[in-house]
């Protein structure tokens, strides 16, 4: 038998949607600020990183290897892949050590521990929004006309964010017990970068590999995003989960994977979260 209760006439100040949003805004903004505050170039770095990736890959594939002719719009095709990939990887990488690193606060202040990794993800989401301006500039240069379908981008970004947060929460909680998680994740990001059709058309993979790749919600979102934004102009490379898993319901497979990851992360946090303070 064990119970801790805090009956009080006033509502607990550390619960409720308003509290959560407030913490995410304040702590997320602070996280975002310190990420760049010590660097001479400041926020410029958040744009430099995707541009550097983009520059190298574009040089190799559009200029040196001349494979770019397989995809029209290779520039935007590549940029979409890089921006989404960097958001996905950077967000999970920032969330992963956040509980362990935020231990000092968790051991002294009673608040929902989930706020620590969530705030870390907000800072990366803000970086992503800054980077979207890069995309806007490139799209304008390429003369891409905005279309009504672009509204779907919001839905796709929401799906990617929920999947990213789910994975980040799960890994950050596991990292409390198992410090190898960071090594595994680092390796996984390297492999994912090459396996996720970021800089090549996914259509060149064998069928079975396409099916495996599309189990990853990130790949599904990236391909759907390219489809929506570029309007199917990329031809055979414009594969989506629906094409690979036979039928319009095909997207449900990666979407279920994302939901499963998020739900198991929340369940694990609910069960283990209250013990973090004593395990750190």
């Amino acid at each position, binding site marked *: *038998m*064990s119970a801790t209760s*805090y009956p009080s006439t006033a509502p607990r100040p550390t619960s409720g949607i308003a509290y959560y949003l407030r913490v995410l805004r304040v702590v997320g903004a602070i996280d975002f600020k*310190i990420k760049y505050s010590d660097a001479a170039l400041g926020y410029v770095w958040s744009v430099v990183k995707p541009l550097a990736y983009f520059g190298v890959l574009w040089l190799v594939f559009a200029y040196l290897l001349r494979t770019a002719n397989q995809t029209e719009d290779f520039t935007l095709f590549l940029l979409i892949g890089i921006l989404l990939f960097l958001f996905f990887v950077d967000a999970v990488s920032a969330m992963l050590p956040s509980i362990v690193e935020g231990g000092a606060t968790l051991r002294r202040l*009673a608040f929902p521990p989930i706020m620590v990794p969530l705030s870390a993800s907000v800072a990366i989401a803000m970086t992503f929004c800054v980077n979207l301006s890069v995309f806007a500039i490139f799209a304008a240069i390429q003369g891409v006309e905005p279309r009504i379908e672009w509204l779907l981008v919001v839905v796709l970004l929401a799906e990617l964010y929920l999947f990213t947060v789910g994975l980040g929460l799960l890994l950050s909680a596991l990292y409390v017990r*198992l410090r190898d998680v960071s090594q595994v994740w680092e390796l996984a990001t390297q492999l994912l970068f090459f396996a996720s059709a970021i800089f090549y058309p996914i259509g060149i993979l064998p069928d079975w590999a396409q099916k495996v790749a599309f189990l990853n919600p990130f790949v599904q979102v990236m391909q759907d995003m390219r489809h929506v934004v570029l309007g199917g102009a990329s031809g055979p490379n414009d594969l989506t989960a629906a094409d690979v898993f036979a039928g319009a319901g095909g997207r449900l497979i990666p979407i279920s994977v994302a939901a499963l990851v998020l739900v198991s992360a929340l369940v694990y946090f609910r069960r283990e979260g209250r013990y973090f303070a004593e395990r750190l």
Partner: protein
Amino acid sequence: MGTAVEVSGLSKSFRIPHEQHTFFKEYFVHPFRRRTYERNDALRNVTFSVEAGEFFGVIGPNGSGKSTLLRILAGIYVPDSGVVHVRGLLSPFIELGVGFNIELTAHDNIRMNGTLAGLTKRQLDERFDRILEFSELERFVDQKLKNFSSGMLVRLAYSIAIQIPFDVLLLDEVLAVGDEAFQEKCFATFEQFKAEGKTIVFVSHDLELMERFCDRCLLLTTGQVQALGSPREVGDLYREHVLVG
């Protein structure tokens, strides 16, 4: 007035693995080896209650479970068994001095801690200057905390803690590092809290301080309640049995 804190039959033990099992390698190399644990009973069947408006001291040698007790009261640790009831708003801070992000400026730490503790933006704006004023750290507001001395950290932490609305304040060894002038300033706030009818649970090694402020004292040794009574009685017992040995 009623009781502010009620603790009955509270036990808490920590399992400390002899060999930290945090690497995959060990799972593969010794998958069936049983892990051995050191069992540390931090608290054993602790029962007491604190009246609303009381200034309650907890005393005991190092490792007697004082901090664990406070952390459980604060809702940071989960008890193994027993019941803990706290009536009213609990102050969120427990161990002053640390709990900050030292890579952040004082300004950002105040905003972050205040927000995590549940202050709204308006409440924080109202209190921000009061926090700085009480801590006397106005000049250092934009400096990173890694450049602060331990005394400055305590000042900042205490100044934040008392600006967060509470009915029950938990203080763990707060005044061990602050200078005398600041200690006196804190004592003045103690008097004020007493007058306002706030409940304070206070951990310290300083017997004089206990006798000066506490209404009652609890003596913990090896996680068990040794004595509970007036600060003088409990203090004498502590001197006799614990300090002398």
